[in-house]
């Protein structure tokens, strides 16, 4: 019997390397003391490293890594966990140094790099910068106008509570019910209902009709319809559905005709790009929005569309033009057979109504002020009480995606509130870069990483860094947290270089109509165009809407 194709490395090497790196990463912060990073920051660094290794090399599924992250957080970082359950900050009352005004005597263990911590409660502290006057055996004299004779400070900067107020374990678990997750759940249920009653197929057939018989217009039509659907459904489900339209076309044209290549490329490209258009289009958007929400910078559903849709349109048209040059079709006409038969059963009609109402309420969020996460409960409730979706349908929803995003959000919370994110970015003097340079760096790194990693994971790893640069002010003047975060989110969705970059690419590749080289060629050009178009928008257009 034939032997299977030889591989350079056996399958288990990647798993083993991933597991080993994760374990080592987790242990490093336990044995190495990093200056300027709180104890909780060390713990979070360990969680960050294990999560990054697991997310990148996937020794376990990426959603399982998210569950692991939340588990480690509730055990290690929550106020109810074994480490912090009975912890209390050690206290020391400052003494005035004799004869010198505003000079205070404190134990040297209370000071690190000119920073001491004011004890504001048993479990909470605040940083204070002081000027060191003199050191004497075991004690330091420091100058500060902020201290008084009753001020209690933390006597040990290395105490586990220093610089970190532990969050309740419910905060970490609660990420799974955060508004953005509920928004996604609403989107998933609408999409599941649409697939169940073939709304997606019928809409496609109706929407494709006006595009006529010319191959280039058929491609344009396919791309626009794919983008519209993938803005509300998962990019992958949209690609699979559109491929059922494209494959019969491909089967009727000759094998040499470039039209086949174009058919197979246009759909994943449009699906990837379409995901950017709405907050629910694709999971990285959720990471961006929830991180911004946490900083009090909410983006309404309609506002997101206002900034993203023009970008998507320009990108779709560029991709279309590019394919027209690179893969000119030979055939001149093609008659599409489009039959739409909308389901007119009572349940289907209810579903259409709920779908339309939800989308309208989402888009008009800025006008009526009801948050999109709240609106999302309309389809969740509506589709289940009317039995449009039944138990089996609910079980089939992509719950693991929600876990993946929840883990990402939870990790972001700890990276911010233990000071890890700031510590990670503070070693580089970002303020030498102009704002535009910084956006380009963010976009480029996001694009590169997400070509090889999951888009959501890329956003999860990068967004907390951008947020901390914004909140700490180390990025310098003119840094906009919102624009940087959105830029990263958009760049994550533009990664379509390889079959592994996104599931739609993998689906297109497996049809056999295209070679990896085709995908790399067009994917790299689209990535670069996208980066610069997004940059132009970020500088010229987004500030008008977001700032």
């Amino acid at each position: 019997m034939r032997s299977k194709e030889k591989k350079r490395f056996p399958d288990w090497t990647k798993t083993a390397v991933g597991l080993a790196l994760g374990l080592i990463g987790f242990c490093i912060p336990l044995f190495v003391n990093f200056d300027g990073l709180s104890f909780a920051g060390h713990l979070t660094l360990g969680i960050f490293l294990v999560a990054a290794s697991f997310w990148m090399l996937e020794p376990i599924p990426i959603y399982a890594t998210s569950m692991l992250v939340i588990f480690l957080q509730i055990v290690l970082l929550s106020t109810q966990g074994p480490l912090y359950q009975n912890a209390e900050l050690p206290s020391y009352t400052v003494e005035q140094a004799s004869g010198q005004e505003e000079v205070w005597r404190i134990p040297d263990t209370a000071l690190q790099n000119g920073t001491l911590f004011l004890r504001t409660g048993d479990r909470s502290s605040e940083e204070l910068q002081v000027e060191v006057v003199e050191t004497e055996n075991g004690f330091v004299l420091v100058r500060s106008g902020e201290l008084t004779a009753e001020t209690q400070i933390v006597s040990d900067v290395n105490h586990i509570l220093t610089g970190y107020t532990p969050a309740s374990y419910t905060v970490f678990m609660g990420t799974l019910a955060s508004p953005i997750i509920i928004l996604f759940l609403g989107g998933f249920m609408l999409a599941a209902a649409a697939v169940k009653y073939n709304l997606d197929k019928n809409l496609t057939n109706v929407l494709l009709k006006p595009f006529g018989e010319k191959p280039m217009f058929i491609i344009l039509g396919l791309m626009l319809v794919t983008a519209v659907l993938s803005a509300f459904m998962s990019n992958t489900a949209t690609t699979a559905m559109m491929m059922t339209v494209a494959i019969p076309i491909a089967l009727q044209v000759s094998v040499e005709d470039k039209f086949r290549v174009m058919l197979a490329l246009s759909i994943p490209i449009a699906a990837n790009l379409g995901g950017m258009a709405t907050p629910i289009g694709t999971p990285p958007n959720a990471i961006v929005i929830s991180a911004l929400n946490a900083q009090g910078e909410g983006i309404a559903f309609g506002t997101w569309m206002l900034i993203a849709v023009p970008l998507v349109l320009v990108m779709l048209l560029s991709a279309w033009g590019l394919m027209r040059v690179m893969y000119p079709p030979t055939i001149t006409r093609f008659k599409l057979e489009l039959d739409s038969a909308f389901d007119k059963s009572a349940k289907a009609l209810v579903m259409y109504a709920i779908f339309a109402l939800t989308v309208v309420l989402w888009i008009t969020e800025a006008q009526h002020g009801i948050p999109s996460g709240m609106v999302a409960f309309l389809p969740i409730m509506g589709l289940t009480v009317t039995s449009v979706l039944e138990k089996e349908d609910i079980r089939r929803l992509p719950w693991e995606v929600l876990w993946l995003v929840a883990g990402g959000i939870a990790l972001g919370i700890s990276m911010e509130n233990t000071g890890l994110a700031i510590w990670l970015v503070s070693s580089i003097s970002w303020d030498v870069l102009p704002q535009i340079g910084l956006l380009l760096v963010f976009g480029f790194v996001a694009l590169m990483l997400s070509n090889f990693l999951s888009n959501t994971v890329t956003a999860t790893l990068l967004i907390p860094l951008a947020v901390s640069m914004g909140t700490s002010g180390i990025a310098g003047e003119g840094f906009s947290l919102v624009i940087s975060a959105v830029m990263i989110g958009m760049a994550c969705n533009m990664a379509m270089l390889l079959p592994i970059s996104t599931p739609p690419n993998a689906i297109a590749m497996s049809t056999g109509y295209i070679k990896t080289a085709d995908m790399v060629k067009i994917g790299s050009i689209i990535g670069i165009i996208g980066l610069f178009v997004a940059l132009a928008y970020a500088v010229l257009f987004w500030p008008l809407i977001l700032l």
Partner: protein
Amino acid sequence: MSTIYILCVEDEPEVLDVIVRDLSGLEEVFPIEMAVSADEARQIIKEINEQGDKIGLAICDHVMPGDKGVELMIEMQKEEFTERTRKVLLTGQAGLDATVEAVNHARLNRYIAKPWDPENLVNVAKDELTTYVIENEKDLLPFMGILDAKRIQEAIRARGSISDY
């Protein structure tokens, strides 16, 4: 991932060669195993089972020395390992009784009369294998290029098994 085999059972070696030649386009993904008798087929089934692989499609002649093709198929239907295997009878001489027996007890999926049209044989094989992978395989993408891509895409859409990440 385990390999999915095609099993062809036919007592005349020349005819067997023609069947295998007609199906050679599928061999890249679905290796073909040949048997000239029911006994040899049983041996191959056992080997494939021991390797941890699967049999997606069995194409069987009926009239053979020793056990008949329909008997082999009924046996396969009773065994857990080959129950899901798609079963095609390729014969010119099966009488009505044997055919009815095959439909009722072997859950025969297709009947192809000899002499056969090669294109039809390939289409039947692709169609049956498509059904097999949709019913039994988690990851459908590796089969899209060679089988009925439209049905596989449709299955991916309906299943929702691949999600964005």
